[in-house]
């Protein structure tokens, strides 16, 4: 009876979980999205408010309210379809895959019309014509993209600007996820140019006195609404609504309201962007993966090399130090362990850039090292406390001082005890190192996401990425196992 009740409760939980998951998606059967929208009386659109002003963002006066020119345009479309529009928050780089999965009806968030997107999903007629704008530091002589040969130029991931940069092999593209950071790094001299849509450049780059936007358009492109393959009738309905809005002046009014209306909107358009064929997992891709794996390994090893001695110092300070030292060590450990590494990396790379300017690799190694030191400190503290009291007594009775006792008796024994958890932490660090992609380092996981876009699929890059992580972590844990066996000869497992 009891068992039956438990099973029953389990089933209810599973049913509940299924219901919750089902709620998250509004997937209509393929090709039925328009019918679904009309039935529900609502069109859901995916976007990322991190893209900020003027696309979709929280109203500063009333943060629960979303505003932006895309909100206004989508509301206009919805009105013409006789439904309401609701925005669904997604990470920008996941918008298209999530659309394909059926998480929402359409994508509208600065989505550029590119050949590869046209291959993958349906795209509406354009609602905005943008220009790729090159921004450089004021006072520097660059006049075109080609003057930046051999320099690094920032842009956003998965954009036409990124494709343009990739098409010029002598330029080293640096890929960001947010609108502000590329211009910040340009100002700090971490890059020599930023290539992005004029909308972003106008708001984040050209207004900065230290920067200068070149007056001509590097290229032009259009923003479109992304629609699932098979929903041709939905595309027709949206195109129809957009055409009406263009004709009756609503589109112009919306764009003027957001200070986005310019001469480009009425000019004849040329084809959008640069076409890059899908890549396959060839020798060059393998080489890129190997390079990324090397970056991951280098960051992890150096960060750990910093974390171990620092962690030991913190542990010794916490166990044996005088009160101020003990408190300081405790605060360090709590702060670094109690806040996300991601936040620490951001603060180190962007937040402190006025005080100290670190390269991305340095910031990555320092950030992960400082963070892991807090974890290692607790491992070593536990190990120090686990050493029998007789050990330090014997050392003192022989006339050894505190430092000699620590160095020759306590620390070697603590390290032996700490070896298994240390191995664990290193493997964990190896994987956490993927977080440093937020400060523009291209390591293994970042390479995988880039490759997934280039190859139009996640499976092969995902398997390659997983295999390389295993190839990195397995020899290390094997090495640690041997070291453990050699060092801890007397630590046989108990026979149970």
């Amino acid at each position, binding site marked *: 009876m009891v068992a039956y009740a438990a099973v029953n409760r389990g089933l209810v939980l599973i049913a509940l979980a299924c219901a919750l998951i089902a709620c998250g998606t509004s997937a209509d059967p393929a090709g039925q999205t328009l019918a679904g929208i009309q039935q529900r009386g609502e069109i859901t659109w995916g976007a990322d408010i991190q893209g900020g002003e003027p696309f979709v963002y929280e109203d500063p006066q009333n943060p629960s309210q979303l505003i932006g020119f895309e909100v206004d345009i989508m509301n206009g479309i919805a009105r013409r379809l006789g439904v309401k529009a609701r925005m669904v928050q997604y990470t920008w780089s996941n918008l298209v895959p999530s659309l394909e999965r059926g998480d929402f009806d359409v994508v509208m968030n600065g989505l550029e019309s590119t050949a590869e997107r046209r291959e993958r999903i349906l795209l509406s007629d354009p609602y905005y014509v943008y220009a790729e704008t090159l921004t450089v530091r004021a006072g520097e002589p660059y006049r075109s993209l080609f003057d930046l040969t051999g320099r690094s130029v920032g842009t956003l991931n998965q954009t036409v600007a990124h494709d343009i940069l990739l098409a010029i092999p002598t330029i080293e593209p640096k890929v960001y996820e947010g609108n502000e950071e590329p211009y910040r790094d340009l100002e700090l001299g971490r890059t020599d140019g930023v290539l992005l849509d004029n909308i972003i450049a106008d708001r984040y780059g050209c207004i900065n006195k230290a920067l200068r936007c070149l007056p001509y358009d590097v290229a032009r492109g259009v923003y479109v609404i992304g629609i699932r393959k098979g929903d041709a009738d939905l595309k027709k309905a949206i195109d129809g609504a957009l055409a009406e809005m263009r004709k009756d002046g609503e589109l112009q009014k919306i764009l003027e309201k957001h200070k986005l209306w310019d001469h480009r909107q009425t000019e004849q358009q040329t084809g959008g962007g640069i076409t890059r064929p899908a890549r396959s997992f060839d020798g060059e891709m393998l080489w890129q993966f190997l390079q990324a794996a090397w970056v991951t390994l280098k960051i992890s090893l150096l960060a750990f090399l910093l974390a171990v001695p620092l962690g030991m110092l913190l542990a010794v300070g916490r166990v044996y130090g005088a009160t101020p030292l003990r408190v300081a060590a405790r605060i360090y450990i709590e702060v670094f362990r109690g806040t996300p590494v991601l936040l620490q990396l951001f603060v180190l790379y962007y937040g402190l850039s006025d005080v100290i300017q670190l390269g991305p690799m340095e910031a990555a190694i320092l950030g992960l090292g400082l963070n892991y030191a807090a974890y290692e400190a607790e491992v070593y503290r536990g190990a120090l406390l686990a050493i029998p009291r007789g050990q330090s007594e014997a050392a003192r*009775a022989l*006339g050894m001082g505190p430092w000699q006792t620590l160095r020759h008796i306590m620390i070697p024994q603590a390290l032996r005890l700490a070896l298994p958890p240390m191995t664990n932490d290193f493997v964990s660090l190896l994987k956490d190192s993927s977080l440093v992609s937020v400060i523009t380092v291209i390591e293994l996981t970042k390479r995988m996401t880039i490759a997934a876009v280039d190859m139009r699929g996640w499976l092969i890059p995902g398997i390659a990425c997983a295999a390389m992580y295993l190839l990195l972590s397995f020899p290390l844990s094997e090495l640690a196992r041997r070291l453990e066996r050699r060092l801890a000869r*007397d630590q046989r497992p108990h026979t149970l």
Partner: protein
Amino acid sequence: MISVRTLSKRHGDRQVLKDVSADVAKGETIAIVGPSGGGKSTLLRCLNYLETFDEGTVEIAGFKLRPNMTSRADIATIREMRVRVGMVFQQFNLFPHLSAIDNITLAPRIVKQEAPGKSLERGLELLAKVGLRDRAGAFPHELSGGQQQRVAIARALAQQPDVMLFDEPTSALDPEMRDDVMEVMKDLAAGGMTMLVVTHEMQFAHDIASRVWVIDQGTIAEDGPPSQVVDNPRTAVAREFFSRIRK
């Protein structure tokens, strides 16, 4: 060599040592006996300042110890004193990450800054003296309890001390291993080492010790040659203790 004057120590409100005074001359071997909890270990550990005390003074190997030795100079004095006073523990306390010879040579090398060659040579001599010359490279876990304790004695001797303190050196050992350790201590005593040995080995107290102290409730209840203290104890506590031990 040692003189203890009005030594007192409390643990909280528990008086562990009460006004203890005693003298030990160079070359003497003192067997310290008495019921468990009487304060034997505490007295021994006060002599090399592993335990602090509240009142009184200790003079040992030419160093003067008093309560509250915390200044920089005091701490240096304590360390110098410990080089001249060796200690052997009930649980051996060998360093498990070091081989037998490294256990022995570590302190001479880092505390007395002896040349490695010299400390190695003497370390091997000491191992030979305790009958373990062929186990120099062995790690503590590869040695029997009796062998470990003999290495621990060699480790203490490597600092060339004037006094050796032993706290129940054979209590953690199987009977058949005790003799080897006892043999080493007998040789040491015969060689003129000043020794204080907390022990339950009545044979050692009787045959080897020059004097026997019976410690009970924080005081030295009886102090005299074994023929007197062991064979004809005056106090009730000593009589009761010896009769229980003999059973």
